[in-house]
């Protein structure tokens, strides 16, 4: 029971990160392998702001959201759009965007190392709370609540607004989207920026209960990718379920066997998905 609850709480945050990535890949067609670094930037900012100015991460998250949105939007317009324009096919764009975002990822890690080259963690709301007979730290609960709120907002935005409809249309077919009057490049930039924003917010939330270091981004990228693939690319519902599964399995392995094996556990899940359901949990098999 302990495992299940802490696993689900962890999974909630994972779901948020995976949603950011699935927007970027599913809509903007960019496999963003610097996703984890964006998360760590969010976390590092929260840490620095908290330790030097004693500002609550719940305030930081609101400040970092527009900043991450603007930065991601600029990155898309300046660096990624040229790649989209020059790519002759999806395969070439995939290779280019993978290499380019690797480059950005390393660059960001390098930058963070200059700023703070060590492990960082801070104590925020580290008080025990009783939840259905299980004791959990309040910070995890707050992070989970934040993730749920952000996820819910995203869902409503995608399904209830004109801009959200445009985003979904571009995800299905960029060509057809252009032909119904949707500005595909703008919509892609918007989706990429929102993806970056959500990821950075996830980073702030996660920093309240996990110790990080500037080079940890790649681990989160891996996890987000595994979740997105397990859930099915572009499938928000799938991503949430997959994230919760990963959260529970990781927690179980860390508690019952060894915390050093969480990545191996994620890999095992990944391997099972690749072998048995490469189209994702709810995906349909391609014809």
């Amino acid at each position: 029971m302990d495992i299940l609850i802490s696993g689900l709480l962890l999974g909630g945050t994972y779901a948020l990160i995976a949603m950011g990535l699935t927007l970027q890949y599913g809509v903007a067609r960019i496999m963003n392998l610097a996703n984890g670094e964006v998360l760590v930037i969010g976390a590092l900012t929260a840490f620095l702001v908290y330790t030097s100015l004693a500002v609550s991460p719940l305030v930081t998250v609101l400040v970092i959201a527009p900043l991450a949105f603007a930065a991601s939007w600029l990155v898309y317009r300046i660096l990624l759009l040229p790649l989209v324009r020059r790519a002759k096919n999806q395969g070439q764009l995939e290779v280019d965007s993978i290499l380019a975002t690797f480059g950005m990822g390393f660059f960001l890690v390098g930058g963070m190392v200059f700023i703070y080259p060590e492990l960082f963690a801070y104590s925020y709301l580290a008080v025990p709370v009783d939840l259905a007979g299980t004791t959990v730290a309040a910070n995890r609960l707050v992070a989970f609540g934040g993730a749920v709120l952000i996820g819910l907002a995203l869902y409503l935005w995608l399904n209830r607004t004109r801009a959200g409809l445009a985003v979904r249309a571009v995800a299905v077919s960029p060509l057809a989207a252009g032909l119904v009057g949707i500005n595909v490049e703008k919509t892609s930039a918007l989706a990429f920026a929102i993806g970056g924003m959500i990821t950075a917010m996830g980073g702030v939330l996660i920093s309240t209960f996990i110790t990080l270091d500037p080079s940890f981004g790649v681990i989160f990228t891996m996890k987000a990718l595994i979740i997105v693939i397990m859930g099915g690319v572009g499938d928000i519902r799938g991503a949430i379920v997959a994230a919760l599964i990963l959260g529970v399995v990781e927690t179980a392995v860390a508690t019952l066997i060894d915390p050093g094996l969480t990545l191996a556990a994620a890999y095992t899940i990944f391997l099972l998905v690749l072998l048995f359901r490469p189209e994702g949990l709810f995906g349909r098999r391609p014809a």
Partner: protein
Amino acid sequence: MLEIRNLTVTYGLHKALQGVSLTAEKGEVVVILGANGAGKSSLLRAIAGISEGDVAGDVTLAGASLRSLGADRIVEQGIAFVPEGRGIFGDLSVWENLMLGAYPERARARRKQNLERVVSLFPKLAQRRGQTVRTMSGGEQQMVAIGRAIMSNPDILMLDEPSLGLSPLLCRDLFENLSKIRETGIGVLLVEQNAKQSLAMADRGYLIENGRITGEGQADALLSDPAVQKAYLGGV
């Protein structure tokens, strides 16, 4: 009126179109006939703003220039395009496709009227509103594509070889529907290989060869022109 003056499209060294001029009015059907590779698709793609080549020349609709506008702006100006391969949202439902068709600002106020137009043309779409388009047959997808285009409230509807891959029966339905669309006041500009059937329902036609216009005239005159008959209607 859609007016194209001196349009040239080049892909690298290859000139797909050279100095093409033509017009299309609201309420008429204009067909462009030509061999494969003659530049017909390049022409429509250039007008719709999705050309991959370099475009030079003038494209105006009711006097306003469309050149150098993005595909989305061109739709707003009143040109709807159904490309080869149809350009529909395969993973979305019929309904969502039609609603996306009404995405342009110019189409929002008239969404209801346009929907009625579409449903009266293709009653089947109303019955199948919840179906995912990808699971429909080719002919049904063609209906969705044309319906989606009408929903954007166009002055001119452009179609790239709509009869390609359709059985003779579905071809006949298609051309009947295009002539009904003309009656609602929309101008239809289409590119076709099927010269006999398309000229039979069109008002005017252009012949295009090696990227240039080589002939134009009233559809019935073209239909009975011996040279046209030899090149496009006879033989096989």
